[in-house]
């Protein structure tokens, strides 16, 4: 291998160099700004995480699995997974192998950024060697991999349904420029390397191309313009990258260590949230996932559009999208880069200033404290107070199982704080949480049994309850049956489908115990979409603006999903889901406690 030019330079590398320089400086400044926005605590957490071998290992694993191999996408749809990982991994390998190749032959040239990128222009193959053809083959192989990904990407733009996506995002103008320049890069590279294949060498792809189209590619006068075009495509892509969805490439690299360090969103525009917003690749998987999407008008309220508006600082739309959401969390469950759309929205809601704020700090907790030394403390919650059949069934179950319990809010109690938290009124929520902590910790109870997943989630996530175990009734009933304290009298032939309530499933990760319980009562069937892809009932108190009529379409859609296997009854474990479904269902809707109470001794 010899160098063709003593200067090792040609003007065509300039567009690439400018683009590269620009994007590197831009990302560096952005990184520093984000770092400065983090609180002192968060900074400490991140720094500590980088010296923690366990977290560091996870960082590296996530970088490979998420950024290069797109493992989550593969699980969702093979074609979609192949398309993304072939481009990401193929391109990555082109850069890596290109650098190795350059290092092997002309290590001194590595310091010029452009040399490994345009290697084939600057060198000539003096004699065929094993080493040479090995590199040629690898480079052609990965180029083919990227090209196949690009072909799929073009097909996807035209027929997204082939890739399992019903709806996809509408791209903005800058996104389109980025997209077309990205598509242009690799075919241009193929042509450019095709020109030089008879000089610098090539393999099955570039060499063959050179031979087949010899009359054109063999004419070296055409060579330079093609290398210029290749460099310009690269330059344009990198120049526009910070203003397009492709910013997700550098952002994700930053997001992974931040997330693994365990820091939380505090401000929707700064720090972690900002990195998350820019990590959104606008793939639009959340559009199909969003339960509001059943009404066409709400298509543009999915998290992908929240992220876009946050980037554009379009305050009106940001507020509208944030307030409308039901906070079911499904967008986060399907999101390829795990952006928690619900938490972003709560953070946005928390910025709102209210003229009047309730003050719960004056509540006299001492007089409300239940006495439950060594007992189970049962907290039904306000939603269960509106569905008394559930608490009645639950009390009956506890009596049958001989559990010594105290009904904490039989005669009314304090709100758990979750509704206020969802509304973004974090300070008020914290006041209630503090009061309830005082009540529960002062009761002497050993276990806090909760019927409502909404309460359960906040008890789990935000309460400091020392040794008191917090347990949802689905789990508790499962344990009572397993321990033989509750005897199933009559399992029947009826089939039941279980609806995973958002706060219990996606919120707290409880999927198996309710199914275990139901399969002891009768035949368990699954809904079309279940577990972490379960569809919100539409009754969620997460939305601040969604009207009753608009929710109806969502409830009916969720019911269609649940009844795909035509079960005899719908079972859920959330009083709010139960009353929402009962309004429109064509078959019985029951809480798991009611079924268990009917079928046990």
């Amino acid at each position, binding site marked *: 291998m010899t160098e063709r030019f003593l200067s090792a330079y040609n003007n065509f590398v300039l567009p690439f160099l400018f683009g590269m320089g620009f994007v590197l400086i831009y990302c560096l400044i952005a990184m520093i700004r984000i770092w400065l926005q983090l609180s002192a605590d968060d900074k400490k957490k991140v720094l500590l995480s980088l010296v923690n071998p366990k977290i560091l290992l996870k960082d590296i694993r996530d970088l490979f699995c998420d950024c290069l191999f797109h493992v989550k996408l593969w699980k969702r749809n093979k074609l979609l997974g192949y398309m993304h990982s072939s481009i990401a991994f193929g391109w990555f390998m082109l850069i890596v192998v290109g650098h190795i190749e350059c290092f092997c032959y002309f290590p001194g040239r590595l310091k010029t950024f452009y040399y490994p990128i345009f290697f084939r222009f600057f060198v000539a193959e003096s004699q065929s060697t094993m080493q040479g053809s090995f590199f040629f083959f690898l480079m052609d192989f990965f180029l083919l991999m990227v090209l196949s990904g690009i072909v799929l990407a073009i097909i996807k733009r035209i027929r997204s349904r082939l890739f399992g996506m019903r709806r996809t995002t509408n791209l903005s103008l800058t996104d389109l420029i980025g997209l077309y320049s990205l598509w242009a890069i690799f075919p241009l590279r193929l042509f450019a390397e095709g020109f030089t294949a008879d000089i610098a060498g090539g393999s099955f792809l570039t060499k063959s191309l050179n031979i087949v189209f010899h009359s054109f590619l063999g004419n070296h006068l055409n060579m330079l313009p093609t290398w210029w075009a290749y460099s310009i495509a690269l330059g344009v892509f990198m120049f526009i990258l910070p203003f397009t969805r492709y910013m997700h490439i550098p952002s994700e690299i930053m997001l992974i260590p931040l997330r693994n360090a365990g820091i939380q969103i505090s401000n929707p525009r700064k720090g972690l949230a900002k990195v998350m917003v820019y990590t959104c690749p606008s793939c639009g998987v959340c559009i199909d996932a969003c339960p509001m999407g059943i009404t066409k008008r709400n298509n543009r309220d999915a998290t992908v559009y929240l992220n876009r508006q946050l980037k554009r600082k379009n305050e009106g739309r940001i507020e509208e999208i944030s307030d409308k959401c039901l906070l079911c969390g499904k967008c986060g469950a399907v999101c390829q880069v795990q952006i928690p759309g619900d938490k972003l929205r709560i953070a946005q809601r928390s910025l709102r200033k209210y003229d009047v704020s309730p003050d719960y700090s004056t509540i006299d907790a001492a007089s409300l404290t239940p006495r439950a030394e060594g007992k189970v403390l049962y907290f039904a919650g306000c939603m269960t*107070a509106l569905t*008394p059949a559930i608490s009645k069934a639950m009390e009956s179950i506890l009596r049958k199982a001989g559990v010594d319990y105290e009904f904490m809010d039989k*005669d009314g109690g304090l709100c758990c704080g979750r509704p206020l938290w969802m509304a973004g009124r974090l300070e008020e929520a914290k006041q209630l949480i503090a009061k309830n902590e005082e009540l529960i910790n002062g009761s002497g109870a050993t276990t806090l049994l909760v019927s409502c997943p909404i309460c359960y989630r906040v008890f789990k996530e935000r309460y400091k309850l020392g040794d008191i175990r917090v347990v949802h009734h689905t789990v508790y009933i499962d344990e009572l049956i397993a321990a033989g304290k509750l005897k199933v009298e009559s399992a029947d032939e009826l089939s039941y489908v279980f609806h995973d309530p958002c706060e219990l499933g996606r919120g707290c990760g409880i999927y198996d115990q309710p199914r275990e319980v139901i399969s002891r009562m009768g035949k368990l069937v699954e809904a079309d979409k279940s577990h972490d892809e379960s569809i919100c009932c539409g009754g969620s108190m997460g939305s601040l603006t969604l009207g009753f009529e608009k929710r109806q379409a969502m409830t009916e859609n969720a019911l269609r999903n649940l009844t795909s296997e035509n079960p005899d009854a719908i079972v859920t474990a959330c009083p709010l889901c139960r009353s929402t479904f009962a309004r429109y269902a064509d078959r019985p809707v029951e809480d798991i406690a009611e079924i268990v109470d009917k079928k046990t001794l």
Partner: protein
Amino acid sequence: MKENIVIIGGGAAGLEAAYQLLTLGYTPIIIEKSGHLGGHLYDWNRLFPDMTPAKQVAKAMMERVKDANIFLNTEIISIDKKDDAYAIVLNNGISISCTAVLVTTGFQLFDAHKKEEYGYGIYDHVITNKDLEGWFNGNKDRRVDDKDGLKAVGFVHCVGSRDIKAGNSQCSKVCCITAIKQAIEMKEKYPDAEVYCFYMDLRMFGKKYEDFYINGQKDHGIHFIRGRVSEVSENIDGKVIVKAEDTLNGKPIKVTLDLLVLMAGIVCNSDTAKLASALKLPTDTDGFLKSKDNVLNIIESPKEGIFYAGACTGPKTVPETVAEARAAALAIHNHINSHKSWTSDSE
């Protein structure tokens, strides 16, 4: 006269229309699904505003229709339009061809189980307005625990009316006055009892209703609390605890009651829906049958030869139902006459 007229439903509207048609010289056919005539009057005890016994009213109405053809325990299997007439097949094997059909299928009460937060069917001492009338009529009801008399009774207005979430946004119209009537009757039975009415608005639109309301407050000391009940629960003794907001005082209140009465609202009779789909009769946005015109022609359907009277087109009081039934009888009479003159002209 030979023309057959079929009246579907033997309640107040059906009986009154039948009587008027008999007077006009027709022999109408009454089809009644239950085993007795009189409809809801049969279940009620006394009627506002003069506390007339419902049985007496029903009896008087039944007396007058003896000459009509009456089918009890009978349901319609099919009903089809054949040329200018309607062919009806009954479940007793009889088929009828008739020139005019009068729909008097009336209403049914909203199923109070659906408002689970009020605890109907869950708590021991929660009943509906209809249950209470039955108890006034002497029916035994273990939910009304009157061994030591009743000390506190509550009435919840608008249960399943004016309630979008219950799927029923319209006002049931007659429950305000019914609740006050029943509250006064309770007070008359147990003068020492505290009686509470939880209402959204009180709509005292009819003759002497406002007097009722004033009497309820002044003479009987009934507590009228403006605010919806938020939550109903049960204490250890099985008594009903009601929490509500007194919106006029801006304060939450909590009362313990021996009996809670839910004023279940009026919804369209579910049998009417079947009939409507068989005859392709349109339903109005409130869920009741849609009249040809809601101002000038409430008693006519958009289909020729089908007429309406009473609560099948919306909640109504007994006097309103009776007036409509008379109007419908006259409309049917006119319909048959015009029909006759039209056929004789063409011959």
